[in-house]
């Protein structure tokens, strides 16, 4: 538990001391404006909830992918990784704490996007199913955190994690139905999207903002939870393997 808390605390300090970790909070308002402009210009005010949820998910994903994903490689670059490994606390637990910290901060994006919609366009969307919304957000954040752990481990293996991360944003937004539901994607790609937790999350989130009753709410939440847990497990296994490999090859200090 102490290791987890140490990770949470460390990440908060790092975020406080480095302004560029909070880039998504600067781009989220811009994307909110872009999406709202598109739907309003097209006369589709019914799609405003979709336009608002998209930047929220994009923000969370950024934190998971870029910030969370670079935790281990960042530590290695700073020359700190070896010493954390040599300390009694579990590195994996520390990483979990750091990711938990990041993702919780990422949730602030939700309020930011809503505020921008309200202030700039006067958009006011009632929370039709507030419990479902809150639960889905939490479970989504959980799944994102799990994916971040997987990324943190996998990025150590790739030689250039920056390009990998860069390539994983928009493809994921498409496959995850971040704005446009996956049902509208071509048939051949549908099976792939089912394995992406985001596709379940985004659908649920949009449903929670619409008046109609939500279909199979618990089943769908369960899918997000399941996929998120699988990511965690994958991440944990890969991390174990990666660290062991680095201890063998001596690459803990440098790439």
């Amino acid at each position, binding site marked *: 538990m102490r290791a987890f808390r140490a990770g949470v605390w460390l990440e908060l300090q790092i975020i406080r001391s*480095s*302004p*560029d970790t909070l*880039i998504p909070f*600067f*781009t989220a308002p*811009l*994307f909110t*404006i*872009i*999406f709202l*402009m*598109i*739907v309003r*210009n*097209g*006369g*589709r005010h019914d*799609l405003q909830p*979709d336009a608002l949820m998209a930047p929220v998910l994009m923000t969370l994903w950024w934190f998971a992918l870029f910030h969370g994903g670079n935790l281990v490689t960042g530590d290695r670059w700073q020359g700190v990784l070896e010493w954390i490994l040599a300390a009694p606390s579990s590195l994996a637990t520390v990483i979990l704490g750091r990711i938990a910290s990041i993702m919780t901060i990422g949730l602030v994006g939700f309020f930011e996007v809503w505020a921008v919609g309200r202030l700039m366009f006067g958009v006011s969307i009632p929370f039709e199913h507030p419990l479902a919304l809150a639960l889905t957000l939490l479970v989504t954040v959980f799944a994102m955190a799990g994916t971040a752990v997987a990324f943190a481990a996998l990025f150590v293996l790739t030689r*250039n994690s*920056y*390009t*990998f991360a*860069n*390539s*994983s*944003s*928009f*493809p994921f*937004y*498409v496959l995850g139905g*971040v*704005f*446009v539901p996956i049902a*509208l*994607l071509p048939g051949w790609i549908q099976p792939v999207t089912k394995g992406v937790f985001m596709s379940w999350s985004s659908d649920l989130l949009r449903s929670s903002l619409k008046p109609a009753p939500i279909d199979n709410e618990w089943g769908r939440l369960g899918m997000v939870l399941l996929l998120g847990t699988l990511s965690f497990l994958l991440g944990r296994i890969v991390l174990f393997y990666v660290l062991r490999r680095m201890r063998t090859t001596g690459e803990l200090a440098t790439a």
Partner: protein
Amino acid sequence: MQHAFRAGIADYRAIWTWRSWVLGWMVRVIAQVSFFGLIGLRVSDERAAFYLLIGNALAVAAQTGVFSLNMTSSERWAGTLPLLVASPTSPVVVFSSRGAYLAVDGALSALGALFIAGPAFGLDLPWPRVLAVIPLTGVVAIASYCFGTFLAGLVFRFREINSLVVLVGYVGLMTVCGVNVPLSYYPAALEWISRFLPLTNGLLAIRGVFEGAPWSTILGDVALEAAVAVGWMTAALLSFNRLASRGRLDGSLDYGA
């Protein structure tokens, strides 16, 4: 100048291989453009999709151009800037050449996205008219690159906010340059400002090509885009010279935190 260009390409090769560029970068670019194309379909119909596709494909050229800001800062960081300033060639010339590959990359990426994602969505490519899009995209890429170079001068002293300025820069361009909505949607003042930014006029020209607008209109828009390019490069030149002389005075040219 040739050497600088080659040096730039060498830097580039360090980050991207052919394989990673195609599989990594282009996949992302096509996904980005398709993301907006799909939104167009969702909001309305094919016409909306095409509008967003074209806009966002060109936005990729702008994105890469703004990235040039990073290159300048890495120069400073590598400690080479003081050496450059001391050399007989003007730093602006060196930078322009060194980063020119980015303009090429931006144009290629944008064209690739347009000509791959476009037809996939059913966008009709009017031959041979559509060939005009190629040089027009080049102009947009160059204008964005000039803008990026100018931004580099602004954030020179503040390495920490580099990434921030790059991202806000290009998403900002996506927001106000008529990429996703027509210029008429903006308040008048904003529309006026956007005309001075890269991408706006060039995008109008390219939309004109697809919509069958008269060549005189298209050329008028391109000329404006070229003027914007020259304007930002001039501003960059002035800014760099000021930086160099100030830096020589207070020693801020060296690398540091």
